[in-house]
């Protein structure tokens, strides 16, 4: 049985992208001091969306200085007033959520279904959640009068551009810090639109500063001597470099890094639900998710049954125009990322794992990668160890719960894990033994502003979200 869908594109007329954008410093947009710019493209079509300023050291310095000037009055505001600004921002984000969803889909390449139903609702919810904390910090368990740190330098990735911005900026502002944020090089637009949201919410100038650029801009921000707090989400390699950079300083550091999450399916799991969880775990956002369930550990006795159902399901996924409301799989974010995924998949084949993808026509322009399974994967294979950050699932098997735990924990990462079984005591026993910051039992890839998120081991340290997320921005 086949389903045919008529195209159902979301209109891009709702978003008005300017031909160029400057840096947002001290409440104004301005060009980079040296006038450098770079282009941001739509990964689905390779269309140039806009030209964005490349911030150099001088610009980072100006942004940090603006944040420093704003800090005294922002941190001195009564918490209730700071909170009201955040509530305003949350409301403006809700009002403009369709516009921002379309923008995010254009700049990132992910399906509109996701930006509309996950990213944007979570973004607004995150500001709403932390807005409420601003005047309740004395009750958060960090002492009677916890103090902000000062200027926060924040560097975020391209996989959830606006949501990662929200995870960074909302708790920072609620606790009284001011921020300089650098969005990812390939997805700068939603952060620049957020700057406009701040202006419309009447946020005092200098409280939020946005500096666009590449890794050099991020490195300058992290190394800036007048930054008190560094928060980074991205690769483990860069995270380690940042940890070295802040060594010997008083900068507080939190890192949310890579992962190689195990999604563990026991023989008593309801197969159809588990399959939905496996698909969500690795194909949500094209697998470009640090907490992706990129290793499927399936109990040997149900391997064939689960794999058959999984392959059937993958055959129904729709890959294509990210703005189409029926699209399940969008574009890979950049040519560079596509090359990395392609190379790792080739390594998987070269090392002897068996590759499978559903019949899937890829668009002729843009960056695309078909949903891919590898079977016959051993723990020694590169694709079982390295974070691929793409729609590639490595399938391994196990016989006993102990073996599942040992295999799941056999990684330097420790961000996420999934457990699928009907047996409650087994869920709890497994959950307690898995060395991962988030464990999804009979579900996967669920997020909420109230729920702390972050890694064990080389997946980083510190938590974002919930009461725990305040700690990263307080002098405690």
């Amino acid at each position: 049985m086949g389903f045919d869908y008529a195209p159902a594109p979301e209109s891009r007329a709702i978003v008005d992208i300017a031909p160029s954008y400057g840096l947002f410093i001290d409440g104004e947009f301005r060009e980079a001091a040296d006038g450098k710019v770079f282009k941001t493209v739509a990964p689905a079509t390779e269309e140039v969306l806009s030209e964005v300023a490349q911030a150099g050291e001088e610009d980072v310095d100006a942004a940090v200085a603006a944040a420093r000037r704003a800090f005294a009055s922002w941190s001195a505001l009564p918490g209730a007033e700071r909170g009201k600004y955040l509530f305003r921002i949350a409301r403006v984000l809700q009002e403009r959520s369709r516009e921002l969803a379309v923008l995010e889909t254009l700049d990132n390449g992910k399906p509109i279904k996701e930006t509309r139903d996950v990213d944007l609702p979570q973004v607004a919810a995150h500001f709403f959640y932390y807005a409420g904390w601003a005047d309740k910090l004395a009750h958060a368990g960090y002492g009677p009068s916890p103090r902000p740190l000062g200027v926060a330098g924040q560097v975020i990735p391209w996989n959830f551009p606006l949501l990662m911005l929200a995870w960074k900026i909302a708790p920072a502002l609620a606790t009284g810090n001011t921020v300089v944020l650098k969005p990812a090089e390939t997805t700068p637009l939603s952060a620049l639109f957020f700057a406009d949201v701040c202006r419309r919410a009447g946020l005092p100038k200098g409280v939020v500063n946005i500096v666009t650029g590449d890794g050099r801009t991020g490195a300058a921000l992290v190394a800036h001597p007048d930054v008190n707090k560094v928060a980074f989400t991205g690769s483990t390699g860069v995270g380690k470099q940042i940890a070295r950079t802040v060594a010997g300083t008083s900068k507080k550091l939190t890192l949310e890094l890579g992962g190689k999450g195990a999604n563990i399916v026991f023989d008593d799991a309801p197969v159809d639900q588990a399959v939905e969880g496996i698909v969500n775990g690795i194909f949500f956002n094209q697998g470009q998710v640090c907490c992706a369930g990129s290793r499927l550990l399936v109990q040997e006795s149900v391997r064939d049954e689960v794999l058959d159902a999984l392959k059937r399901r993958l055959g129904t996924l729709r890959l294509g125009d990210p703005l189409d409301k029926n699209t399940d799989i969008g574009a890979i974010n950049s040519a560079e990322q596509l090359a990395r995924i392609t190379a790792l998949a080739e390594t998987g084949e070269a090392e002897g794992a068996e590759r499978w993808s559903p019949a899937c026509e890829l668009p002729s322009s843009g960056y695309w990668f078909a949903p891919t399974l590898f079977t016959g994967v051993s723990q020694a294979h590169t694709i079982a160890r390295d974070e691929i950050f793409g729609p590639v699932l490595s399938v391994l098997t196990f016989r006993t719960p102990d073996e599942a735990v040992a295999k799941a924990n056999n990684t330097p990462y420790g961000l996420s894990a999934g457990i699928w079984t009907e047996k409650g005591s087994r869920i709890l026993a497994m959950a307690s033994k898995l060395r991962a910051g988030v464990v999804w039992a009979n579900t996967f890839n669920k997020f909420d502003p109230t729920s702390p998120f972050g890694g064990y081991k080389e997946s980083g340290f510190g938590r974002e979200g919930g009461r725990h997320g305040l700690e990263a921005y307080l002098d405690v």
Partner: protein
Amino acid sequence: MSERPERLAVLKTYKLFVGGKFPRSESGRVYEVTDSKGRLLANAPLASRKDARDAVGAARKAFGGWSGATAYNRGQVLYRVAEMLEGRREQFTAEVAAGSGISRAKAAAEVDAAIDRWVWYAGWSDKIAQVAGGANPVAGPFFNLSTPEPTGVVAVLAPQDSALLGLVSVVAPAIVTGNTVVVAANEKAPLPALSLAEVLATSDVPGGVVNVLSGRTAELGAPLAAHQDVNAIDLAGADAELAKELQIAAADNLKRVVRPRAERWTTDPGTDRMLAFLETKTVWHPTGSLGASGSAY
């Protein structure tokens, strides 16, 4: 009848404490520990990089059992340490007074504070999870619970300004939550630390949960900070220069780091040092419904 000669005291050979045993340094090295006037107190083992690695291995081996013990049990064990220490107050007072060059009265006060600190942390074992964790009211049909869990193997450079109280103040908060520890003792005054190992060995602390090394802090800090099976490091006993160097090494496997800072070991320690070596794990499960269809998903 001739007068009996004055009894000759039996001196103690101070040894390392690794995996519940008391080995000498594999290097065969010792260094002279003196009092504040330069008089020889004892020879202490001058532990090597190899000793540090052995200690990490012992700590890793002990982690599963200790972190898997009930919080109540860990609390009982820490309280037992306080009991054992109380019984050896005189010995520790003498060692602290001699090693730190302080008066007997001041040393006695430090020993008392150290005993009381074990009691303070013993009581935390089954409370910290309630303070640091909790249920999260997510916007959806899910049960969602955050629980603190021990980070793993923690390397500790004991403070240089307080041979016993400082040591207890950095070791107890790490182990009470289920971590295991390799501690480099106060460099100049290691004897209270080595004697504390004897107390731990007779307090139901499982072997390998605390491993005590004496020697040069910088020499031991380097392999501990670089060790890929150490999860965290407390740099209390490092000076600024060493701390920077060790933080750079610790970045290789993203150890959790507690930087050195001005400390007053006599004040209320708070929860900082426990929280520094805890990971927050958040578990989700659908709550579903109890509809007639029977599905809970």
